């Protein structure tokens, strides 16, 4: 006979809702906009709810939800995997070394840094995105990222190195396009205050 097991919704919420902000921010980095991010989180939560019995260790709930979200992202947005690899072989340090000072940061801020970050992230393959997100946003160690993504630590290190190169180069390139800085300091202060 078919056994219909009832999911304890209250327990599900207790365990998963504290991770909503984390999921939303990962989804935001993946998708690049809040609407897609919200959809991704909702899909993740529904999948998590229907598969709640598969969660063996409650302590690993955050990683479990992350895996579901990542799988949704990969499955439903396959076109993102075919993103151009945007590596012309040049070094991002070339962009830094042209600068007398760290003026690139000001210009990035001027260009709405969050949008720039999302734009550049969107050009990077997921296999580099995920380690970057966990490293910068969650401040995870290589070891922790390795466990989360279930990949060898050496792979984490090389993917992080390559991911950072793409990310930094993308950001610096975008800052270089528009050199006429406006009220840089004022905006920087605004960002800092925010």
């Amino acid at each position, binding site marked *: 006979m078919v056994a219909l097991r009832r*999911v304890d*919704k209250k327990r*599900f919420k207790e365990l998963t809702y504290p991770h*909503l*902000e984390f999921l939303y*921010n990962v989804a935001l980095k993946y998708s690049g906009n809040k609407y897609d991010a919200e959809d991704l*989180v*909702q899909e993740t939560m529904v999948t998590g709810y229907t598969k709640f019995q598969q969660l063996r260790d409650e302590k690993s709930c955050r990683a479990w939800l992350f895996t579901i979200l990542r799988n949704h992202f990969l499955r439903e947005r396959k076109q993102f995997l075919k993103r151009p690899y945007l590596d012309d072989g040049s070094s991002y*340090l070339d962009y830094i070394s042209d600068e007398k000072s760290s003026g690139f940061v000001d210009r990035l801020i001027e260009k709405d840094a969050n949008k720039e970050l999302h734009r550049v992230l969107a050009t990077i393959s997921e296999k580099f995105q995920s380690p970057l997100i966990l490293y910068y946003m969650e401040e995870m160690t290589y070891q922790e990222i390795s466990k989360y993504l279930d990949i060898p630590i050496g792979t984490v290190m090389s993917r992080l190195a390559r991911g950072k190169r793409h990310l930094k180069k993308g950001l610096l390139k975008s800052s270089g396009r528009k050199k006429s800085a406006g009220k840089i300091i004022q905006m920087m202060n605004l960002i800092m205050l925010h």
Partner: protein
Amino acid sequence: MDCATFSSWLENRDSYDLSEADRAMKHAIVCAECKDLLHNDEELERFVTRMFQYEMMDERLVGKIDRSLDSAGLKRGFRGGIAAAFAVVAVAVLFFVFIPGRGNFSSMDEFGQYVVQEHREHGKITPLFEKIGDIGQWGQDNLHHSLDVNTLPAGNIKIVGGRICTIKNCEFAHLLYQDGKQFYSLFAVSGDEIGFDLEPGRIYSLTVSNVKLHVWIKQKMVYALTG
């Protein structure tokens, strides 16, 4: 370490051994250009970290998720109901297609094979059989049918005891008789449970796997006696 190696290290720090960091730092102390590069890269690193900071989540998202979960629960229940209904129908189909009617024996031969097998497997294990005082009453109590075993087509056999057994979903009374060292099994089952016809008053004799068997029907009860 030279400037080129320093740049390479700076750009790929995550994949370099930690010992390289010491050498790179020593180079940065003596090379102003690389020191600037390091300073700028660190600033960029801090900037990127800041950009990755959590952004505020729309509080309405929690409500949306609540509704999604409610909806998922309903769908789940609906799907579960369909699955359960489907399972019930499947079981019913299996029951009617593959399982013959209760106690249906297609022939006397088949009936004989089953009772002889039961006799062989259990017909000598006397502890299985309880002592019986009034057989008629025992039959009524255990099989809900009275048994008429006053006249048997065998000689001086004495009852050892009785048990209820199930053969092909039919409840049988299994009475054990003994004549010296020889054991005899008498099986009794309601005539409604078998799937073949017997002529009342006639005793059918057959041999199944070298075991002689007598079968007859009396007052709607079918009897089979080995030996």
